[in-house]
């Protein structure tokens, strides 16, 4: 079942085309990685999917609902969003921040369930031991996991993430990607902007490669992440080999 449908997305700003007729679908149960060089339009695409940015052309639907017509409250029940960090001055404690993820579902009025969902979300990304700490006192990697816990607590069918692993150590990167896989396993549709091509190769069902606002290729990592294609997109020589331990490609930069 298609959960995310984006068709013909065009975004132009200041005479520059940031996204040029980008279309793609994500089914329930899928993890899709969005990759591409800086300025490719990855974050802009994510903001369009989230309903933060109205495209100049094209349309997005989430779980069958037109994003442009949905209210702020309705959108919060359709999608969660893990964005870049901007929490340096937040005085709330971790437990309170994750509990804010239940705000969109507050109308259901089940406080006990809310409490359980918050506790589970914190445990899943290994921040339960930080519950009583103030958010601003955490490292950026810990803050990033708290943001993810908040999104998990939101229990939305669509989960959008902008570089969710950028501040994480290797072990927590693997953990977060496993959590995303798990969320998809529970019926979620997950779209993550990733800079680490090997995380995308190892942990996603499909990869969307953007370059200059154009969708270059979209499909399984083995098909999309090829040496010539990546070398062109990133303007740096790259090679792709078989991962020695995993059933996925391994991207290597080969230097100039």
């Amino acid at each position: 079942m298609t959960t995310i449908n984006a068709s013909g997305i065009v975004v132009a700003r200041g005479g520059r085309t940031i996204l040029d007729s980008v279309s793609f679908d994500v089914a329930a149960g899928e993890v899709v990685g969005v990759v591409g060089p800086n300025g490719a339009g990855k974050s802009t695409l994510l903001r369009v999917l989230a309903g933060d940015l109205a495209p100049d052309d094209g349309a997005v639907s989430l779980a069958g609902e037109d994003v442009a017509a949905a209210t702020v409250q309705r959108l919060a029940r359709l999608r969660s969003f893990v964005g870049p960090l901007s929490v340096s001055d937040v005085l709330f404690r971790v437990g309170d921040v994750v509990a804010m993820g239940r705000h969109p579902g507050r109308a259901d009025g089940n406080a006990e369930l809310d409490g359980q969902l918050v506790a589970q979300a914190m445990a899943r990304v290994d921040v339960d031991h930080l519950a009583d700490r103030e958010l601003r006192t955490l490292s950026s990697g810990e803050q990033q996991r708290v943001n993810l816990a908040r999104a998990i607590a939101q229990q939305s069918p669509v989960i959008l993430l902008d570089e969710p692993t950028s501040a994480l150590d290797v072990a927590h990167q693997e953990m977060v990607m496993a959590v995303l896989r798990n969320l998809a396993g529970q019926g979620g549709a997950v779209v993550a902007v990733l800079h680490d091509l090997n995380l995308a190769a190892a942990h996603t069902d499909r990869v969307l490669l953007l370059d200059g606002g154009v969708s270059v290729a979209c499909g399984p990592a083995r098909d999309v992440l090829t040496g010539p294609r990546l070398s062109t997109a990133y303007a740096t020589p790259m090679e792709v080999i078989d991962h020695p331990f995993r059933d996925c490609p391994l991207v290597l930069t080969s230097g100039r």
Partner: protein
Amino acid sequence: MIQQRSPRVAYWLLGTGVIVVMLVGMLAGSVDVGLSDLWHMVGYRFGVGEERLTDSVLWSIRLPRVLAGLTAGAGLAVAGVALQGVFRNRMADPHLIGVAPAAGLGAVAGIALTAAGGSPFIMMAGAAVGGVLLALLMRRIAENVTDSAQLVLVGIALGFALLALLGAIVLAWDSPRVPTFNFWVFGGLSGVTWSTFGAAVPFVLAGAAGVVTMGRSLDILALGEDEARHLGVDVARLRLLTLVAVGVIVGGVVGLAGVIGFIGLVVPMLLRAWIGPAHRHLVLVSALGGAIALGGLDILARTVAAPVEIPIGLITAIGGAPVLVWLLLRRVR
């Protein structure tokens, strides 16, 4: 960092503080009264006993003044909490960003529009309109500044200009219908009557009730505008409603007590460090704290140099400025 304590302790301590301030406020002043006079007045109001001179002093002068001090202090602190939440800036304050001076101008406009004799309610309504307009102007300015310190500086500049304009109008008009220059610029509770108090209360209560209902959304806004939107908070609507509520509160407060600084800034800052940032408690605890602060300082204003009364705004500045400096240097949130 100050250790966070249970809000229950804060409610009890501050609630008791309000009662103490109220009692002391009733007993302190140029006419010597004791607790027995206070009980006699209460009895007389319920039809027990003969009238004494102290009954009318306590009922007609002190009680409205004490209640006005508590109400204005509570209103200023709640307005401060709301402004700090909506602008995500701990230095936002109704006086500092110009809302209170604008309310003063609105009040004077309200007086000008009413027939001789005047109506306190229309004066408060004018003040509320002035406060709301300035608060909404600050919202427009906030959209165009990226640096939160810049917002406060713009507010300070506007506030100075509006206060000067207000002072000039009041001095030039020089009519017995208009409260004095001192009242507008330094605040004052000496002219409070049951009628002005009664006119101000609905504004303060309505605005504060509005702020209370927006507490949860203001909590979420602390994470950032994008995050709040992603969690289903209509940020534009929240800003509009909160600023209207602030304008209405400040309208009531300024119409009642003139322009008074520091309460809306220092009280929430102290109490946030004590009980934490959650608005559902912070708004109510700040209301109690603001009531104690202004009620207590008003007692000082009318006793330290008796029979001369010191304008309340001078006392809040003398007391509030050092506390603010201390808080900022200690980096208390």
